[in-house]
């Protein structure tokens, strides 16, 4: 199929905007041609998602000079050089995306696995119900009734394990008589992915009143997770039940060549694909107005979390509440009154489409973004963990260091790349601002590449990868990512201005740049997009850049629109406590990266 395809149309129906992209094969490679967007039309008065899709496609038609629509339908396959497309794919997060509840016997075991399966499929997990969650049965029933999820994933027990606990959970769900959000005339989809010995009893309890689907156990044994079948079924049911009952989606589904995917699920799929293809460890983040999604691939394990109450517009006040004023003001390089900051943030919440009008507002917004990203990443680290409850092999050498299971998989020193997405990162006035925000929030260690998604087309490319992997990866490499450069951050602490590393960069021109890096400073070494430089880092004995404390590391780094950023502020990052000194340092760092205009005059 891949060989015949020349023109690809992809849309992403977001909560507020529907985005369409047109991809064309030029010679041997696929490239992005144009992008169009229009308001999403799921809500009243239109209540038909296809209207927004058609509007976005019309914009693409105008910009590309290509006729794609005929009588309100997409022309497929393409007819000649100026008409139609060969594939049409779409993702959707309209109407709040896919909202799920999951249930498992033990919260930190099958409960956590069920949550990972749902999150990985692109859902928002509203609650995790477990036998040991400390709530009384009536409270659990009340939660299920109140939340009205789109779908419930029930798991529990290894194969051949507990049946009674699973039966108890099934009875709780049955007692709640859950009703779906959309469509009153159909039964709520429930996926059972637990102990195979309990299938009979689950069918008996839930089979009659719900749309029960049974898939393979997500934890056939405690030592292994098997999330694929459950995720596949979530996608399937998302299409059959949730999307089919959302306004206009039945028509949209008839247009697409592959099933519509939940937007975050598609992004996760793309990130997983890229990590696998390049053999790298990646973190991806999408900071939206209401939610922040974090994706990661470490040790070949993909994880996704969604922080449903951390965002830059609808949820911005919640960022303030969770992080606290102090944590936000610590990133602002000027005196700001608490009331002023609160008002700016609240204004953003009630007027979500506004953008900062001056540099002060921009700095405040970006300070909030740092904290939102940091908090979302903290949540991600606590979810992206190894399996719990597994038997360990010990030797006598473990006598004083008995590591526990369930440690986080996220290892910042091993991390190769951070990809940022979302308005505050992708549309930052200067790319160095996006780089600085990501460095401050994620605190990468050692050598880490930084990139942002230029126009947020990862969802479309994710769903496209299921049908045309080559096109998806080529467009991702060439048009989707804007490479910011590479961050080099030695790990360790020292006194201000003490030498922490010697650096020798051999630029593509052959010129050598040698620097002694001092603790507490940031340095920018320009290196263009597509360029590489050989670098030798010789840290002092208290610092580690990836080869071990005090050990020399030789490697090649990638350039970008920002360049090589040397962050010698130490890890863990400790901002000066004295406000005056902190503000001076923030300005110094921003000026080193040329992130803001005329900051020195403040």
């Amino acid at each position: 199929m891949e060989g015949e395809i020349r023109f690809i149309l992809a849309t992403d129906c977001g909560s507020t905007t529907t985005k369409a992209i047109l991809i064309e094969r030029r010679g041997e490679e696929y490239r992005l041609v144009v992008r169009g967007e229009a308001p999403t039309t799921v809500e009243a008065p239109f209540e038909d998602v296809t209207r927004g899709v058609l509007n976005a496609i019309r914009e693409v038609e105008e910009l590309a000079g290509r006729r794609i629509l005929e009588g309100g339908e997409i022309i497929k396959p393409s007819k000649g050089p100026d008409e139609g497309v060969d594939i049409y794919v779409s993702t959707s997060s309209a109407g709040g995306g896919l909202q799920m509840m999951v249930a498992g016997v033990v919260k930190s075991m099958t409960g956590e696995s069920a949550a990972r399966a749902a999150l990985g499929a692109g859902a928002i997990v509203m609650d995790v119900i477990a036998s040991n969650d400390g709530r009384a049965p009536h409270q659990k029933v009340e939660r299920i009734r109140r939340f009205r999820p789109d779908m419930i994933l029930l798991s529990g027990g290894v194969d051949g394990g507990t049946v009674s606990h699973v039966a108890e959970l099934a009875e709780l769900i049955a007692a709640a008589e859950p009703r779906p959000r959309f469509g009153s005339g159909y039964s709520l989809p429930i996926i059972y992915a637990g102990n195979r010995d309990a299938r009979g009893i689950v069918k008996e309890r839930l089979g009659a009143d719900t749309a029960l689907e049974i898939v393979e156990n997500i934890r056939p044994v405690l030592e292994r997770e098997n999330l694929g079948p459950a995720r596949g079924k979530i996608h399937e049911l998302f299409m059959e039940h949730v999307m089919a009952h959302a306004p206009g989606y039945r028509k949209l589904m008839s247009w697409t060549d592959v099933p519509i995917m939940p937007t975050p699920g598609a992004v996760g799929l793309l990130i997983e694909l890229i990590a696998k293809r390049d053999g790298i460890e990646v973190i991806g983040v999408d900071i939206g107005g209401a939610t922040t999604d974090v994706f990661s691939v470490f040790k070949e394990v993909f994880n996704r979390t969604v922080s449903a109450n951390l965002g830059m517009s609808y949820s911005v006040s919640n960022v303030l509440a969770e992080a606290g004023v102090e944590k936000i003001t610590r990133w602002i390089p000027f005196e700001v009154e608490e009331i002023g900051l609160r008002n700016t943030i609240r204004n953003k919440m009630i007027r979500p489409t506004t953008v900062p009008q001056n540099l002060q507002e921009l700095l405040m917004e970006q300070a909030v973004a740092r904290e939102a990203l940091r908090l979302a990443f903290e949540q991600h680290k606590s979810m992206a963990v190894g399996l719990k409850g597994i038997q360990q092999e010990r030797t006598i050498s473990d006598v004083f260091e008995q590591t526990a299971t369930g440690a986080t998989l996220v290892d910042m020193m091993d991390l190769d790349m951070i990809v940022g997405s979302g308005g505050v990162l992708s549309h930052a006035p200067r790319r160095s601002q996006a780089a600085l925000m990501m460095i401050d929030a994620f605190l990468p260690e050692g050598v880490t590449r930084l990139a942002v998604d230029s126009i947020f087309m990862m969802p479309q490319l994710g769903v496209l990868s299921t049908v045309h992997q080559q096109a998806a990866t080529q467009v991702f490499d060439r048009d989707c990512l804007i490479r910011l450069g590479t961050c080099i951050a030695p790990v360790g602490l020292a006194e201000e201005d003490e030498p922490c590393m010697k650096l020798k960069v051999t630029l593509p021109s052959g010129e050598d740049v040698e620097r002694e890096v001092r603790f507490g400073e940031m340095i920018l070494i320009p290196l263009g997009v597509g360029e590489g430089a050989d670098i030798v880092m010789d840290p002092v004995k208290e610092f580690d850049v990836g080869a071990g404390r005090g050990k020399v590391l030789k490697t090649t780094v990638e350039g970008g629109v920002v360049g090589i950023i040397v962050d010698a502020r130490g890890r863990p990052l400790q901002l000066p406590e004295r406000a005056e000194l902190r503000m001076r340092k923030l300005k110094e760092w921003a000026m080193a990266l040329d992130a803001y205009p005329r900051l020195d005059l403040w």
Partner: protein
Amino acid sequence: MRRYGRRAPYATEFIIGILLLGTSAVQGEALSGPAPVTQVVAIDKPNDSGGSVLIRWKRSADDGAGMMSVKGYEILRSVEREKGYEHLTVVPAGVEEYVDNTTVDGTSYFYIIGATDGVHRTDSDPVGPVMSSAQWFHQGRLNMLIATVLLSGLVLWFINRAKKGKKLYIRPIAGLQAVDEAVGRATEMGRPVLYVPGIQDMDNIQTIAGIVILGRVAERTAQYGTPLIVPTSRSLVMTAAQETVKEAYLNVGRPDAYNPDLIRYLTDDQFGYAAGVDGMMVREKPAAIFYMGAFYAESLILAETGHSTGAIQIAGTAMPAQLPFFVTACDYTLIGEELFAASAYLSKEPLLLGSLKGQDWGKAIFIAILLLGSILASFGHYFLSDWLTTGSL
């Protein structure tokens, strides 16, 4: 100074004495006996419970020097200064101190020390009166007093802090953190939890610690709805375990789930018990096994069998010889004091937390003092090590 002469008991000695008398002037001095002791002091023996007097003197000029004639010192005691002196004992030459442990408190005594060469004795002036009595405070134990006050103060201070709601950091103990995980595993697998509280009776502190931890494990099994089997090797331990588990099930609101039949007595015999527990492991296939208490040679037999059944195993013992076996065969092991710290760690009770924290700080301070004393002693300064051993500088 008076000289109390003494008649020679044997004629031969007397004749030799007469013969020697005329030989020289030096020999003439020998007739009057050795030089007397000097600086005689008799005091009530300090830091005791009475009934003893300490007598000190400077030895005779002829003891180890001069005529080299002193063979010993005779101790004489009387209740009157002038008369009635009775022989107490003779101490060898070179000794300058004697403790009379035969005094009656409240009675005044006088002492005379007589330097003797075997023939003659030269007595000191009487010293006294001296009266023995008991002391309230043993000054040699000042170091212990300081240590006790310091330790108690630390414990009380930390308890107070804990009661005020201050968070007291306690190093995470992986074995205890894994309790939930082990019980969770048993729940998911639909299998029981097995708890082995050692083979000693309730008079063993390790068994008591094991029973405290059993309470916590029982709360978890009650919450998770997982059966808990406790085989015991002592009847008293069985009773204590039953009460503990029953209370735990009540605490979490699941008294209905408590089954006393699962807490059983097997046998007092060490290997009979080991065989019985092994049989349970093989038959019931528990998914989580706890060994908390005192163990001997049966430790590896139990832990190996448990490992072969695929269970998560958490052990805790203060028996040093058994620790290597548990470390290698179990998933987590509480080592020595960790077993005793477990109750504080698990319950988070201010009283227990404060005590634990205070004791740890006390230990840290004592280790620092010992290290400092060793370093000073290495450089020839012994005042700290002396103070630590004797209580006096």
